[in-house]
């Protein structure tokens, strides 16, 4: 399959008074049409900056570097603002985390839905409106035509996120980036919205990057997974490989934090990973996770080899973990074992 998006050694640096913050450090991935990549990580791991870097929407002070950043044969690393603008909202769209604040309060839903189409395509207002109604119906909004005249404050959070999804799909993009699209919603709505997003992606054969910290979501929808920790992908590969045979201690720790129906007994403590994410300011060497890892050794402070498993399953760890059976419990989840903080 041809890759629609190819990323090699993507870096985002933010110069600060106290030194440079290396927020994203050497990201690699490929994404084909119709595929879903989930980027997983905790707050501050650089996953949102990664998506903004692809969109060319990084904050002014942030610097983007890459060996390759190619979308549908277009080299984004050298694309001018004008060219990026013509891609955004047309061939690449984005869905943001906060539906409550991501819509402009001063304009109607109809205005905002049709804007992208009117900007990028030579269509009339009538055709754009028809498309907007079609998509609102597609995302499950009833009385779509009458919604067009409504303002964002008249809609609930779930409805607004549906509108955001419809808005992202207006121009039938090739790639859709969804940055924690369900995080701000009620738990009852989260599953609906996610289902909707995945169905539409399959139907329109788009590539999707889904950014999340919810492993439950990943397990359901991802083709590929990249686990990010402190600006770095520590493990990546096909979803089923990463879930059935996690190699990196951080991935294993994360997996232990979620309850498994049938396996987790009532009242049983779920796992947690002790410690906090290290500061990314200045030069960092070695494994960023070593301060919180219970299998850390001296070698972790030096360059870490990237190890390859089957079918593009990659992870960065000094240990060749494929030899070690993943532990069923214990290990990472007790605070006393945190040692060797960098």
């Amino acid at each position: 399959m041809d890759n629609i998006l190819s990323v090699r050694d993507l870096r985002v640096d933010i110069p600060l008074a106290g030194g440079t913050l290396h927020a994203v450090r050497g990201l690699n991935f490929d994404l084909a049409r119709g595929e879903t990549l989930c980027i997983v990580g905790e707050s501050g791991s650089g996953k949102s900056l990664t998506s903004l870097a692809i969109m060319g929407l990084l904050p002014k002070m942030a610097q983007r570097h890459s060996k390759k950043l190619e979308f549908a044969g277009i080299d984004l690393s050298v694309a001018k603002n004008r060219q990026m603008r013509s891609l955004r909202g047309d061939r690449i769209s984005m869905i943001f985390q906060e539906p409550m604040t991501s819509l402009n309060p001063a304009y109607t839903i109809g205005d905002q839905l049709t804007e992208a189409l009117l900007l990028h395509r030579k269509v009339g207002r009538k055709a754009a409106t028809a498309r907007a109604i079609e998509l609102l119906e597609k995302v499950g909004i009833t009385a779509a035509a009458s919604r067009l005249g409504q303002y964002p404050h008249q809609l609930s959070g779930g409805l607004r996120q549906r509108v955001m999804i419809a808005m992202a799909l207006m121009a039938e993009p090739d790639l859709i980036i969804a940055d924690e699209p369900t995080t701000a919603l009620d738990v009852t709505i989260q599953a609906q919205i996610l289902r909707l997003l995945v169905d539409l992606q399959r139907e329109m054969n788009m590539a999707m990057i889904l950014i999340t910290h919810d492993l439950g979501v990943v397990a359901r929808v991802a083709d590929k997974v990249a686990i990010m920790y402190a600006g770095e992908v520590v493990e990546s590969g096909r979803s089923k490989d990463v879930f059935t045979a996690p190699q990196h201690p951080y991935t294993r720790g994360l997996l232990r934090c979620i309850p498994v129906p049938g396996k987790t007994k009532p009242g049983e403590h779920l796992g947690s990973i002790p410690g906090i994410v290290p500061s990314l300011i200045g030069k960092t060497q070695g494994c960023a996770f070593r301060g919180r890892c219970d299998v850390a050794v001296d070698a972790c402070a030096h360059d870490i080899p990237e190890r390859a498993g089957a079918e593009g399953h990659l992870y960065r760890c000094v240990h060749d973990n494929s030899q070690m059976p993943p532990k069923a419990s214990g290990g990472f989840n007790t605070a006393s074992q945190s040692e060797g903080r960098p």
Partner: protein
Amino acid sequence: MIYTLKRLGLAVLVALAVSMLSFALLHLSGDPASAIAGESATDADIAAIRAFYGFDRPLIVQYADWLFSALRGDFGESYYFQLPVAQLIGDRLSITMTLGICGISFAILTAVPLGVAAAVRPNSMIDRMALFISVMGQAMPSFWFGLVLVVIFSIKFRLLPPSGTESWKNFIMPTVVLGYYAMPAIMRLTRAGMLDVLSADYVRTARAKGASEMRVMFKHALRNAIIPVVSLSAVQMGFMLGGSIVVESIFALHGAGYLAWESIGRNDLPTVQALILIFALFYIVFTFLSDLLNAWLDPRMRVG
């Protein structure tokens, strides 16, 4: 629609309250009859004046009489000019209105673009320049700035007339002086509003749609940032119409502000009352208009 009616009702109530207050204030601040009669008047003279002007009637009757006349456009006769107040004010008001509208337009047309430019590049040269201009405007008293302009443009270069109301040229310097006084606050508020709005999520959404920077600035950001500016401008406008006395006296524009000032000195009660009411009505009308404009800008306000 309901919102508009509500605002309108409120405006009428405020106008009524203001009319009572201005009437009461002037009548309670001293005996108008003895003030008109002067220091050498006898008690009999004062009593005669009191009877002539109807000051001996109960206050509420005097108020009702004045209010209903005022509603018909009859503000009584000026004690000093012996002319109907309505006619007297009418002439002066057109000068003040011209000056006020020019002044606020000058202020808005310079302040908003400068505020936007400053917000787009905070701490840049243009931002610092805007700050400098606004600090100057705040620090310079109008009378001094007016005189400086007269010295430069009328006396040195002889480009503009220093006083009078003969042509549009007469209004240039007063407009600049009056407008420059209102400009700094409008500019600072525009800048702050834009800075706030530019980091909003919906601005990022607009960029993600592929909107150009101009479109992001003016369509998505400015409309949301300008709302407090509209309210402030309405107040400034009301202030300009009522409080342009200093500017009017420097440039010898005999407007309503100047008339108010003179009339207070002359104890010309009907004129002062009428002017207070009219100035208050200006505030009320502009506030009402700014409420409507804001409701148009921000649909969330329409709920009322």
